[in-house]
């Protein structure tokens, strides 16, 4: 199968969406549960300091940025007269994801 830019962008958008949908209930549950006490929430935050968890967090942020970029690409293709911009939009989506990933990694 040849992987065209548009196909690859759609695949990344879809896979990131699936993973985010799996992550969200866990994210909401963790926040809702640990906030019952500041100590429990701080314990959760301490847990997120492990390198592997940090890496996972960074991955989730990257997925979120990638899904945002991919979504903006879809909206632009569907609602704006930019049909010749397939590759530019895919590149812009990738650039956005990388920029956010870098900003988050530098702030970690």
């Amino acid at each position, binding site marked *: 199968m040849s992987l065209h830019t548009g196909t690859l962008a759609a695949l990344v958008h879809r896979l990131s969406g699936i993973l985010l949908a799996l992550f*969200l209930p866990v994210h909401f549950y963790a926040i809702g549960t640990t906030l019952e006490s500041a100590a429990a929430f701080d314990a959760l935050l301490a847990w997120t300091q492990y390198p592997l968890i940090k890496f996972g967090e960074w991955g989730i942020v990257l997925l979120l940025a990638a899904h945002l970029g991919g979504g903006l690409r879809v909206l632009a293709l569907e609602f704006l007269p930019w049909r010749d911009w397939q590759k530019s939009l895919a590149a812009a989506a990738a650039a956005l994801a990388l920029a956010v990933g870098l900003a988050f990694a530098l702030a970690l």
Partner: protein
Amino acid sequence: MNVKAQAVLWVAQRASAAVLALCVTVHLATMVYAIRGGLSAAEILSRTRGSVGWLVFYTVFVLAVTVHAPIGLRAVLEEWFGWRGTARDVLLVGLTLLLAVLGMRAVLGVFL
């Protein structure tokens, strides 16, 4: 599913996407800003507790995600796994409720 219902889902998916584009941008920027110098419960709660602005923002965010994620998964389950029908829709309604309840519980948790 009839054409009208399909159209409603399509519009709901695009409308929620547009809302989420704004919400995710704000959320990402807030996270990058907030994690500088480490996070603490006190720091997060000092920002959100009693803040009607953040309450409204995160309520809109959770509701938009509650609409968006199940519709997106619906397409994936149908196109990749050929799964359609009642069982799939029951699962998706379950996910919708799960996201709404857990999401609003978290939002109210940081506000109250």
